[in-house]
C-alpha cells in the first residue's frame, strides 16, 4: 500500500486531476461551439489571486480558492460579451491576446514579483501535514506523514473535479445544456428557436473561466510558487489538446485526455528514444496530435452514448 501510494504517483494523480479541471474548463466553452485560448489567462488570474491573498494578506485557503474562482469570472464577463456577440474567429483572437496580455502584465508587475513570480505560497500538503500532526493522527498502513498529506490533497483535488463534473453533467441534462448543444450544432437555428445565443455563449465562457481560475488557485497552493511563464500560450494549447484528444463531446473526454497525456508524459519522463528525452518533445507531440485528431477523428477519443429520452416522464 505504501509503495503504491508513494509520493510520486500521488503527485502525478493530483497533477492529472488539476489538468482534467483545466481541460473541462475548455470543454465547457467548446460545448457551445466556440474556441477559447483564454483559459490559461484565467488560470493565471486565479493562481495569482490565491498567491497574493495568501502571501500578502495571509488569507486562508477557504478564502483564496473561492477568490481564485471569482476574479476570473468578473474579467470574463466583459471580455466574453465583447467577443462572443461577433463571429467565432474573434473569440479565438481575443482570448489569445488576453492570455498574452495577462502574462505580460504579471511579468511587469513588481508587486506580484515580476518575472520571478511569487514564492513560498502556503502549500496544501504542508497544511494537511501540520494539521494531522497537531491532531495526533498516526498514518495507517506504514505511510509517512507526507504521504498521507499528499493522499489527502489528491483526494481533495479529485473531489473538486468530481463536483465540477457533476455540475457539468447536471447542467447538460437540463435547459441550459440543451441550449449549449443547440448553439453548438447550428446557432442560426438555435437563435431562431428563441435561444439568446450571446447570453449562453458568455455563460459558458464565464463558467470556463471559473473552473480555470479554480484550477489556478489549486496549482498555486500545490506548487508553492507561481510565475508568469507557467501561463503562456503553450499552456493554452496544452489545455486545448487535452480536450481535443480526449473527447470534445463529453465531459469525461478532458478527464481521459488528462489521464492519457499527462500520465504518459510523466510516465515516460525519463524515457529516452534515440538519445532524445521524450519530455522535451511534449509540445511537439501535442501539436502533432492536434493536427492528426482534428483531421481523422475530430470528436476526439471518447464520445458520449446517446441519451434515451423515452424513459423520461
Amino acid at each position, binding site marked *: 500500500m505504501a509503495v503504491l501510494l508513494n509520493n510520486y504517483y500521488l503527485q502525478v494523480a493530483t497533477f492529472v486531476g488539476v489538468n482534467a479541471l483545466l481541460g473541462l474548463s475548455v470543454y465547457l466553452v467548446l460545448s457551445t461551439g466556440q474556441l477559447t485560448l483564454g483559459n490559461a489567462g484565467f488560470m493565471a488570474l486565479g493562481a495569482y489571486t490565491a498567491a497574493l491573498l495568501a502571501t500578502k494578506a495571509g488569507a486562508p485557503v477557504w478564502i483564496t480558492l473561492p477568490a481564485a474562482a471569482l476574479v476570473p469570472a468578473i474579467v470574463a464577463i466583459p471580455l466574453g460579451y465583447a467577443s462572443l456577440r461577433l463571429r467565432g474567429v474573434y473569440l479565438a483572437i481575443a482570448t489569445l491576446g488576453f492570455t498574452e496580455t495577462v502574462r505580460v502584465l504579471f511579468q511587469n508587475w513588481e508587486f506580484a514579483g515580476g518575472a520571478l513570480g511569487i514564492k513560498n505560497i502556503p502549500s496544501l500538503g504542508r497544511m494537511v501535514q501540520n494539521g494531522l500532526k497537531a491532531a495526533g493522527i498516526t498514518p495507517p498502513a506504514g505511510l509517512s506523514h507526507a504521504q498521507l498529506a499528499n493522499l489527502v490533497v489528491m483526494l481533495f483535488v479529485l473531489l473538486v473535479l468530481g463536483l465540477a463534473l457533476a*455540475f457539468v453533467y*447536471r*447542467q447538460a*441534462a*437540463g*435547459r*441550459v*445544456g*440543451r*441550449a449549449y*448543444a*443547440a448553439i453548438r*450544432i*447550428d446557432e*442560426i*437555428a*438555435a*437563435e*431562431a*428557436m*428563441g*435561444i*439568446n*445565443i450571446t447570453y449562453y455563449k458568455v*455563460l459558458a465562457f464565464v463558467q470556463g473561466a471559473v473552473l480555470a481560475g479554480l484550477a489556478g488557485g489549486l496549482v498555486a497552493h500545490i506548487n508553492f510558487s507561481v510565475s508568469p511563464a507557467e501561463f503562456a500560450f503553450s499552456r493554452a494549447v496544452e489545455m486545448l489538446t487535452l480536450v481535443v484528444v480526449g473527447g470534445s463531446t463529453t465531459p469525461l473526454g478532458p478527464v481521459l485526455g488528462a489521464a492519457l497525456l499527462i500520465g504518459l508524459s510523466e510516465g515516460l519522463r525519463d524515457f529516452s528514444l534515440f538519445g532524445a528525452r521524450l519530455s522535451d518533445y511534449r509540445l511537439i507531440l501535442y501539436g502533432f496530435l492536434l493536427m492528426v485528431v482534428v483531421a481523422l477523428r475530430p470528436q476526439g477519443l471518447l464520445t458520449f452514448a*446517446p441519451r*434515451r*429520452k*423515452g424513459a*423520461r*416522464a
Partner: protein
Amino acid sequence: MTEYARPILEVRGLTRTFGGLVAVSEVDLTVPEGAIFGLIGPNGAGKTTLFNLITGLLPPSGGSVTFAGQPVTGRRPHVITRLGMARTFQNIRLFGSLSALENVVVGTHCRTRSGVWGSVFRTGRTRAEEAEAWAKARAELEFVGLADLVDAPAGGLAYGQQRRLEIARALATGPRLLCLDEPAAGMNETESEELIDLVRRIQRRGISVLIIEHDMHVVMNLCDRIAVLNFGRKLAEGTPAEIRANPDVIEAYLGRDEDAADQGA
C-alpha cells in the same frame, strides 16, 4: 376570418440592399390574424430574403415590421421568436445529431425559464417545468404525426418527416404566427395533401400562417390571401381567385409554371 380582423403582421416599405444589388424593395404586406397568407414568386424574387428580414435574421436597409402591434424591425431573432413568431427554413435546419424529441424540446426554450441553479440542484420548480416541456414536445410530435419517431436521430429521418419535424419544433415555441419556407418542397402528392391538412389544423389552433411556396396546388387550396413577389417588389396581392386572374402575375410566371393556369380552374 373577416376583413376587419386585426393584422398579426404588418410590413411597410421593407427594403434590403446588398452593395449595389436590391434584393427586396419597398414591400408592403398585411397578414390578418388567423389567416393563412401565401407568398409566391419566381425563383430569386426575394421571398426568403423577405422572410429573413421579417424574422430578424437579416437587418433591413429600410422600412418597418410590426408584429401584433409591436415594432420588431431589426430586433434579434430570439426576441422575435419569444414575441410569438416562429419559422422553418428552406434548407431544413434541424439539429441532426439530436433525436426528434430533443429537437422539438429545444423549441420550448423560450417558454421556460429554469437556469443553471435549477438544473444543477434539480429544484422542484425546474423538475415540474422540465416535465411540462417534454410533455409539450411529445404533444407537438404527435400533432404532426411523428409520435413513433420520438427517439430517432433527426439527421436520419426521411425528407418529408424532417419537414414535419421542423414544423413541430417551431410549434413548440408557442407561436401566434408561423412562417413556413417552402414546406412542400420535394413532397409527393400524398405528402402535399397531408401538409395542407396539417397547416389547416394549425390554423384551427388559432395560429396565423405565412407560407412561401412554389407548389401552386398547395398555395391555391390553402391560402386565404396571396402576395406575389417579383424582382424584390410586390407585384400583386389578393385572394387566390384574384391572383389567378391577374395578368401581371400570369406574365411573370409565363413558361415557369404552366400548371398554375390550369390548377383549380
